[in-house]
């Protein structure tokens, strides 16, 4: 099975602070991989490096190599890369437009769809996240009026509009209620049949529920990376064991 993303000896520094040390990881295609670990150990930074979003922020320096579908990401034009990789942040960030316009925004920029085609794509993606039924009569309502869980599902649907091969999620459920979380987890599992997913999460139960593989990061270093079952049942490292049992972070 080929890997959708590969990291080789990746170290990232913010200004003078070293955030990630020498990480080497392989993310398999069409699987959900979880990144576990306490807050502040660089998981968000790692995500942002994958679609070269880190370059847009000041002072982030990346050493080592990152490959997307076999090619070094520095050699792929960033706008193409970002069409292929979607990202969803921790706090739902819909654009300050209507639901319809949120979905149409990227589509209109990259393509010249006719109105009918545009609508079809939008409805299809909204259906993928189970949001369509809930909003079909209110597509022109401001997205900010949706509930937190709905906003987050909108953000996921929005990232799907460009048909990415990989979606990155940064603790997408941490500000949501359990019900919304369940729906999003269900959405992600469904999506993983077609799209690879990398999810940063604090929620150990979530990782166990949906992730095929899990990586445990501690203070910027990769401690362990195995299939989720193996990691939870038979962790190799002491630190992993302590974290999973709630003694750390």
């Amino acid at each position, binding site marked *: 099975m080929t890997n959708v993303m590969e990291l080789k000896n990746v170290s990232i520094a913010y200004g003078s602070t070293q955030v990630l040390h020498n990480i080497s990881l392989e993310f398999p295609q069409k699987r959900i991989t979880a990144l576990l670990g306490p807050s502040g150990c660089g998981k968000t930074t790692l995500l*942002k490096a994958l679609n070269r*979003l880190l370059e847009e922020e*000041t002072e982030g320096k990346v050493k080592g190599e990152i490959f997307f579908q076999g090619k070094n990401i520095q050699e792929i034009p960033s706008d193409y890369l*970002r069409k292929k990789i979607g990202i969803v942040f921790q706090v739902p960030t819909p654009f300050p437009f209507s639901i319809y316009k949120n979905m149409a925004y*990227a589509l209109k920029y990259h393509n010249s769809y006719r109105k009918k085609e545009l609508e079809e794509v939008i409805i299809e993606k909204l259906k993928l996240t189970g949001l369509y039924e809930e909003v079909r009569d209110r597509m022109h309502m401001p997205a900010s009026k949706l509930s937190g869980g709905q906003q987050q599902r909108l953000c996921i649907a929005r*990232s799907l509009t460009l048909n990415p091969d990989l979606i990155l999620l940064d603790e997408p459920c941490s500000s949501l209620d359990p019900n919304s979380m369940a729906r999003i987890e269900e959405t992600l599992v469904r999506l993983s049949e077609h799209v690879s997913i990398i999810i940063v999460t604090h929620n150990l139960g979530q990782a166990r529920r949906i992730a095929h593989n899990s990586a445990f990061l501690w203070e910027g270093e990769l401690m362990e990376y195995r299939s989720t079952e193996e990691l939870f049942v038979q962790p190799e490292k002491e630190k992993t064991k302590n974290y999973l049992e709630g003694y750390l972070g």
Partner: protein
Amino acid sequence: MKFFGEGFFIKAWLYISVIIVLTVTSYIIFHIFISGWSSLSLEFLLASPAGMPLGTEGGILPAIMGTLALGAVSITVASFLGVATATYQFLFCRTLWIKSGIRIVIQCIAGIPSIVLGLFGYTFFVVSLDMGYSLLAGGLTLAIMIFPVVAVNTEKALAETNQNQILSSYALGISKAYTFFGIILPQTKKDIISGILLAVVFAMGATAPIMLTAAVLSASAPTSLSKPVMALPYHLYILASQRLSVDHAYGTALVLLLILLSVYALVATIYTGKSSDNL
């Protein structure tokens, strides 16, 4: 209440200060309004200066138009410079020292006394570039004076946008330009426009930069960029310092203040519109 008790001196200091300041400022403003009101006839507002010496009779229409024209020219140039600089710092600049450097440059320009800018404008625009005393020379000099105001206000406005929304836009492969016009500008345009209007007020009230580059005692209404113009602040200065006509001076001062106050009122309406948006 024990007024003479503890803290008496501080209390006295506070209240006396406030009384002095309020009295002085209200008196100034009321005095101008009351004394100038009688000069505001239709003739005053719509005619050109007349009489011997010039300015003792007639009106100030060309000065009103000249001030508006100078405002228009300077704000056009200043808006482009100021908004572009702030946008560069916000969207494009990745290195911290360049960002700070630009900020320092803008503060330095803001710190140059307006008369020194006028001096520069005279030698550079009027003489070296051979523009002569002209609307353009004055407008450009004023633009240099006011563009820091636009830049600082725009920078403040841009800093308040939601960083994650911008990142989400980039993450969808959207260019900076499209993100700017599609996401950033709609949120910030009220603040940016307010900053621009505040800069215009600053430009229209300024005398020193234009007295060496554009303003004359008597000129026709501004029809061309290459001719000198009349301007209210300069007209006021001449009328007052040469004791030509106290009545007309009051009138000129009042008209200038009214124009500036209406722009302030415009800014206020923009802001009340903004706060009701967020309800």
